[in-house]
């Protein structure tokens, strides 16, 4: 079986192609259903956002899977769409998904929104019954890596937009913005955007000052702020902890003298002045005054550039997290490969034990229940003890990749048919009623066998492990 990722994104395809192949929310169920009903795709998840449409699938044959998905994309977006596709297989497909979930493959490096989109895509596919053991594990691990990228590496913490960079600078001075007062000078689009970010950051009081009072009132109404007439600008300056200025004025609207007078009224408390206007609203000499932290648009762009560089540095850290997660996923996959083999060997042992018990039953019909129980227990114990070390070593050798599994299969006389049956039971929980899949399936199987040792099922306390499983 193989994992493949086929799709296109903002780097590989222009928007007119992306919009054609994207899967809107209301069409998702139908597409998932079509994927579920084909024999080519064993498991599938569709990640479709404004910047990418990707299908992650588990396929029996990589070639058949590639062809099927290439055709699917071509049907949605035309032959041209197929030319913009990228295809990743196995480890590269898993790595790609983890990079996507961590925001490393996004238009804005480290953005956080994609993690939610990947999670939603996975949950939708899982709810529709399109996922099995392989994609369940892969997506859960990818989402975990995405969360670590945000929480531990903090890749999305440093803002990359000018308006949000202003908030970052304000926070560098004041930390917690609750209780701080903001003066917005000018009622333009940038003022509105920055005010919006400041409000989201917890600013409590806001005043809006504009040459046209009506526009100030209109913007103030949006944020529940207080409008100020243009003549009261100096008063507003004296009270504010943060000043956001973005007017269309030709000259400086906040001069050094006005700022000096206003600052004299506010004591030693600092003030952050963010001048987003071009031409500038605030005289650069204001920045020379004590306790004033003055930033213009170039400074904010400098912050954005530094933040981007920091995100790139953090991306390297996230790549290490991804490598670690891939290694763990590889181990898990190796375990999954060995599980059917162990289960098959185990089943052979149990079959031999059951046949021996039948033979004893026929040859010694006078055995009491107690004697039969004792024989059952001891013959099962022989099987357990014989298989314990080989099973343990097989698992270790499979994970380390030191020995090919087919050698073990031949040594124990396990046929391909046996393996296929047990693999289906391990990887496709739906395929066999009550099967848990993976190692849990093996443990359950083993537990059942041990319970057949002759002791009643409820002889042990609930949850207590038999010696062989401890």
């Amino acid at each position, binding site marked *: 079986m193989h994992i493949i990722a086929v799709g296109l994104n903002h780097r590989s395809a222009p928007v007119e192609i992306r919009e054609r192949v994207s899967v809107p929310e209301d069409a998702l169920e139908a597409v998932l259903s079509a994927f579920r009903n084909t024999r080519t795709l064993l498991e599938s998840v569709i990640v479709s956002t404004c910047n990418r449409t990707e299908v992650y699938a588990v396929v029996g044959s990589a070639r058949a899977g590639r062809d099927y998905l290439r055709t699917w994309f071509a049907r949605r977006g035309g032959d041209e769409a197929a030319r913009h596709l990228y295809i990743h297989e196995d480890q590269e497909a898993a790595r790609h998904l983890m990079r996507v979930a961590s925001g490393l493959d996004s238009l804005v490096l480290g953005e956080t929104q994609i993690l939610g989109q990947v999670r939603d895509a996975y949950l939708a596919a899982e709810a529709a019954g399109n996922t099995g053991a392989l994609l369940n594990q892969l997506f859960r691990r990818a989402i975990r890596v995405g969360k670590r990228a945000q929480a531990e590496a903090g890749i999305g913490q440093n803002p990359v937009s000018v308006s949000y960079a202003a908030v970052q600078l304000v926070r560098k001075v004041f930390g917690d913005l609750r209780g701080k007062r903001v003066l917005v000078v000018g009622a333009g689009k940038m003022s509105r955007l920055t005010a919006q970010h400041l409000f989201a950051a917890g600013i409590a009081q806001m005043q809006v000052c504009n040459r046209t009072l009506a526009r100030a009132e209109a913007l103030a109404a949006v944020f529940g702020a207080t409008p100020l007439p243009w003549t009261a600008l100096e008063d507003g300056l004296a009270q504010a902890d943060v000043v956001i200025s973005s007017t269309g004025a030709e000259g400086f609207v906040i001069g050094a003298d006005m700022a000096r007078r206003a600052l004299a009224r506010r*004591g030693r408390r600092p003030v952050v002045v963010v001048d987003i206007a071009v031409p500038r609203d605030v005289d650069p000499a204001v920045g020379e005054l004590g306790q004033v*932290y003055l930033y213009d648009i170039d400074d904010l762009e400098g912050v954005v550039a530094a933040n981007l560089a920091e995100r790139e540095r953090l991306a390297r850290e996230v790549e290490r997290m991804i490598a670690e997660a891939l290694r763990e996923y590889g181990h898990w996959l190796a375990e999954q490969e060995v599980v059917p083999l162990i289960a098959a060997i185990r089943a052979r042992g149990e079959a031999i034990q059951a046949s021996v018990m039948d033979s004893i039953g026929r040859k010694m019909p006078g055995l009491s229940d107690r004697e039969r129980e004792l024989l059952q227990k001891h013959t099962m114990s022989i099987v357990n003890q014989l298989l314990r070390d080989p099973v343990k070593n097989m698992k270790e050798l499979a994970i380390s990749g030191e020995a090919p599994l087919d050698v073990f299969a031949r040594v124990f006389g396990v046929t391909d048919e046996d393996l296929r049956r047990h693999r289906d039971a391990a990887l496709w929980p739906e395929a066999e009623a009550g099967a848990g899949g993976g190692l849990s399936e093996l443990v359950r199987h083993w537990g059942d066998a041990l319970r057949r040792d002759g002791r009643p099922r409820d002889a042990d306390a609930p949850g207590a492990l038999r010696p062989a499983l401890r």
Partner: protein
Amino acid sequence: MANARLLYDAFIALYALSVVLFFVDAVHPRRALNRSALALLFTSFVLETVFFLDRLQTSGAVPVLTSFDALSLVAWMILAVTLVVDAFFRVHLVLFMANLTGFAMAAFAVFRPMGAVYHAPEGDLLYLHIGFALLSYTAFAFAFVFSLMYLIEHRFLREKRWNRWHFRSPPLDVLERLAYRSIILGLPLLLVAMVLGTIWGKLTVGRFVYLDPKLFSTTLLWGMYGVSLLLRVRSGWSGPRLVGYNVVCFSAVIVNLVVVGSFSLFHRV
């Protein structure tokens, strides 16, 4: 004695290595580097603790009476506080700066006589006096660290330099508040130490000793921090000047601890 020296040298070496790794981590952040530095810091803390316990056992006296002890104990307290705080929060640069200060004190202590053992009359009161004084010095050391960090961050914000320090340093507001709170903590501790010391002097000598230079300098030091506190309470914010003044105050702490003690009748050991 030789063992104690060896222990202290090992502590200093590990402490130095840890501070260097923290510095490299501050310039080129690496998780592995940070973890190694932290492990070394913890090891040096354990070594210093063992050193003090060994000293306590061999000398039979609580090792707080010499200037060597005082400096290394303040370093030990800085280590303890930063390790505990770092276990709960990620304090990055604070950890580095505080331990740089702690290391400087521990390294300076090397130049003071280490083996001196002094058995004082009315020992319990004296231990309390010194204990409170050292706690206040530790609080002032933290006020110094936060103030210094404030000044550096303030400078970078004014000069518009968006470097690693900018990304890792706490906001100015937080640094200012922590420096202020450290002084609030240190000031009453120092006052209690002064009162206890005066009482100990009266009990030992039989009269109040007014003319000791240490008494003058410590009162002056207390007044200096008092002025800082007063100005901060009045304005609600310490600007860079007042924060700079806190740094000067801490220099006075060091002078008081190391230099003035040599001229004192009671603090000469």
